[in-house]
């Protein structure tokens, strides 16, 4: 038999039909939905007079719009409240399980899926959100879709997709201390650009990847969309199985043993061929920070903004436009620059390990007086864990307050907006113009970099 990749094995096992010269009809195992990209799909479905085909394969949670304080009160902003209420009503009407604001399992859709054991190896998973790539950390094919496709999944539990090309990104060796998987992601994107992965699905491999915890793997796969790829995935292994075992929706007893045997077969064959392959050395990666308005514009914290001298034409114009928005100059050093806000959270870095890293750094230190910090857990369960582990006391005595779960300042659809012209060191995934609020200037980094910036009030190297 021809050697195949992990991606091929899962994809091929989900093809219901293939249109000659066209896309495949791909069966979807799990469909996550939230309040922003689902309402038009529900009304489309109902407009056609169709039932929801497989409500039991669908899971809903409101996350994009929700406030991160006083969640027990009605949402003040009318349009946000209406979107959340619409999701609730749609889920009730179509019998979709929903973890709403008051539920003990509420949280960001890409945090709660893995946390509840809904996300499992070998699955196909979609959601109307590009960071669905997060779930690939379990050895699943998971990717973001548009609202028309959400409606397709509602109607048929399938979507039409052309099979993407395959890319493997190997990271070999041992990561240095204080270097995280967020740094791997920002490093790789700075090397291959925000369009380097376009048309591809990425498998991350190599010894540095195998050494990562499940949560660190999720951060890396989450960011795979930022290099343009449809998604990223990592072959399941003992780390994956240990994480899943015993979670609410994970198989139990004999069913677990049966699944485990199947999951163990999910890996790329030795001689399988990828359309594109990159290999990076883990020792070259240092704590990263971005300086521009796309996630590929990143450097090591000790580095400088490129001069742009080698660029010409529209490349140069785009580079300079980006720096002008950021208020930076070509060739400048980033370390020591004053910052105003820090955001810890999002589907990229809103898990317990991220808050442990943050708390470990700030313990016994004090937040810089001029910095506003928003510490936002990814889910109720993460919030609970932060409390149980005593991290809240550490945060409070250092001058930080814990908020309630949601997407928050990552995309600033709720009230958590960075004011115009202010600098925010953010553990989220995108530094686009206006992403965190009109005129906001975002510097993407790891929770550890964000912790150091919050304490020192300037861009700092957490290794100092």
């Amino acid at each position: 038999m021809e050697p195949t990749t992990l991606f091929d094995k899962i994809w091929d096992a989900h093809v219901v039909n293939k249109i000659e010269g066209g896309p495949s009809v791909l069966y979807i195992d799990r469909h996550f939905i939230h309040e922003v990209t689902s309402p038009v799909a529900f009304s489309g479905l109902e407009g056609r007079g169709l039932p929801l085909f497989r409500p039991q394969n669908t899971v809903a949670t409101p996350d994009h719009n929700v406030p991160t304080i006083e969640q027990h009160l009605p949402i003040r902003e009318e349009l946000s409240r209406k979107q959340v209420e619409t999701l609730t009503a749609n889920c009730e009407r179509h019998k979709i399980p929903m973890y709403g604001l008051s539920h003990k399992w509420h949280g960001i859709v890409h945090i709660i899926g893995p946390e509840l054991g809904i996300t499992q190896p070998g699955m196909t998973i979609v959601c109307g959100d590009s960071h669905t790539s997060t779930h690939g950390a379990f050895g699943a094919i998971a990717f973001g879709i548009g609202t028309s496709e959400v409606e397709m999944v509602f109607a048929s539990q399938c979507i039409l997709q052309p099979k993407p090309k395959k890319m493997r990104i190997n990271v070999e060796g041992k990561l240095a201390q204080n270097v995280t998987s967020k740094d791997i992601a920002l490093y790789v994107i700075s090397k291959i650009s925000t369009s380097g992965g376009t048309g591809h699905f990425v498998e991350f491999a190599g010894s540095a990847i195998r050494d990562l915890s499940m949560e660190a793997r999720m951060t890396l796969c989450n960011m795979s969309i930022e290099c343009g790829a449809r998604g990223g995935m990592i072959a399941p292994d003992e780390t994956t199985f240990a994480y899943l075992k015993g979670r609410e929706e994970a198989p139990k007893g004999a069913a677990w043993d049966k699944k485990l045997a199947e999951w163990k077969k999910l890996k790329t064959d030795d001689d399988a061929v990828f359309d594109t392959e990159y290999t990076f050395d883990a020792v070259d990666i240092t704590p990263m920070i971005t300086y521009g308005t796309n996630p590929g514009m990143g450097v090591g914290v000790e580095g400088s903004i490129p001069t742009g001298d080698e660029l010409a034409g529209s490349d140069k114009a785009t580079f300079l436009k980006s720096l002008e928005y950021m208020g930076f100059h070509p060739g400048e050093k980033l370390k020591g620059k004053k910052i105003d806000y820090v955001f810890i959270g999002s589907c990229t870095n809103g898990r317990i390990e991220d808050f442990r890293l943050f708390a470990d750094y700030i313990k016994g230190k004090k937040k810089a007086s001029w910095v506003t910090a928003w510490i936002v857990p990814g889910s109720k369960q993460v919030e609970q864990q932060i409390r149980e582990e005593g991290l809240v006391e550490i945060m409070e005595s250092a001058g930080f307050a814990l908020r309630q779960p949601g997407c928050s300042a990552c995309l600033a659809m709720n009230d958590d907006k960075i004011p115009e012209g202010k600098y925010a060191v953010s553990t989220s995934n995108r530094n686009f113009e206006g992403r965190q609020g009109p005129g906001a200037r975002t510097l993407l980094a790891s929770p550890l970099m964000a912790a150091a910036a919050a304490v020192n009030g300037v861009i700092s190297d957490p290794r100092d």
Partner: protein
Amino acid sequence: MIEKFIKIVSSAVPLPIENVDTDQIIPARFLKAVERKGFGDNLFRDWRYRKDGTPNPDFVLNNPKYSGTILVAGKNFGSGSSREHAAWSVYDYGFRVVVSSFFADIFKGNVLNNGLLPIQVTEEFLFEMFDTIEKDPTAAFEVDLEKQAIRNINKSTELQFDINPYKKECLLKGYDDIDYLLSLKNEITAFENSRV
């Protein structure tokens, strides 16, 4: 059903900026509607309007010299979020074709599902289009989906473009994917049963 797309002859609106992401096409704060209408008003919102809400005269959509149903953009157009609102806003504004030298995957899929044609051209052809429009903002371009060709009429240059044959058929006939998927219900159920 989507609107049929067969042939268009139109002037074009130039946006020679690279990596235009979905947050520029439509900022997240305008995604709060629960109905699919009116998104064109907020297309390129933060470039198109000043802070006080008045139109920014320097932005191309506010320049009366430029008009047409073809948007011509720098490479890597539509990167970022999967929000279909980005495709809706471009369509709702009145564009029917987006030309660039490179598109982000999800955005490309989304526009195709909404009767909007993404045409990937060479850098050379793109720069020639920008140049033509700069010299003559009324310059017309012809897009023929059946022939899979885009023509710069002033320069008499033409380029063939790629499109998935299935998607081409859908656009020409105004079909959408759900019609097709519904016809497969029996196969889908059989597939589910085969996996148990």
